[in-house]
């Protein structure tokens, strides 16, 4: 590695969030796919509100809407709010404290069954897909 005297190397690992975290695949404790990193939750420090820490990964359709541009993003979010069974639906929140490793795949120490990452998909399958004539066993 070439050291540039003009570059001060910080004590901790340095990453660029959009380049190295966003859209990465999540892998759960069962080695199963558990969604993607659609957004990050940034929380102010208790000591200094200007200091922000990454406290959680946000995943699922509820997290993706705000990232999409303009009308598409608003339409996506409105559709998610309309279809989701909860009155004020929130995206799936995965505490950064359960992250085990970073890389092309981000490994977490929880099972996807405890995250509810597929709850929206299940609800859509049960309440919409199943009612479409000719869907057959598509909801299975």
């Amino acid at each position: 590695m070439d050291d540039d005297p003009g570059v001060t190397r910080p004590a901790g690992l340095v990453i660029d969030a959009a380049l190295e975290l966003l859209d990465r695949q999540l892998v759960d404790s069962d080695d199963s796919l558990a969604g993607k990193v659609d957004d990050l939750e940034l929380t102010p420090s208790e000591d200094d509100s200007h200091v922000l820490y990454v406290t959680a990964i946000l995943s699922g359709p509820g997290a993706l809407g705000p990232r999409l541009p303009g009308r598409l993003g608003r339409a996506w979010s409105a559709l998610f709010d309309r279809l989701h069974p909860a009155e004020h639906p929130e995206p799936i929140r995965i505490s950064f404290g359960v992250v085990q490793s970073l890389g092309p795949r981000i490994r977490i120490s929880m099972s996807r069954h405890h995250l509810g990452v597929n709850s929206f998909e299940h609800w859509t399958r049960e309440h919409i897909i199943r009612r479409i004539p000719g869907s057959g066993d598509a909801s299975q």
Partner: protein
Amino acid sequence: MRLSELLGRPVVDADGTSLGEVRDVRLVQDGPLQGTFGAAFRVDGLIIGRYEVASRLGFDRRGVKGPWLVATIVGRLARSSRFVAWEHVDATEHVIRLRRRADELQPPAPLPQLRTGSVG
């Protein structure tokens, strides 16, 4: 706050000159302990640029050595990229205002030079 609330926002310097938009957020893992992950990531600063494609491919930070034609074109687009430390950022309004002038900002340091570990 969400990361997506920062990405894409317009940025002006202390003189009101437009610098482009927020293209990325640089994080440093030196925060308080957070479960099994260890130290939390802290927002260290913003990477600002005029051309999204240059930042999206990481040409301004990874020292990418692609095909020379691509490297030349995207490398030129990435020359406008600048890093600003979070302490100099006022993100209270939609247009992010910096407490520094454009000529006081440096291009973002390439990630390999900042690394003590490795991330794929």
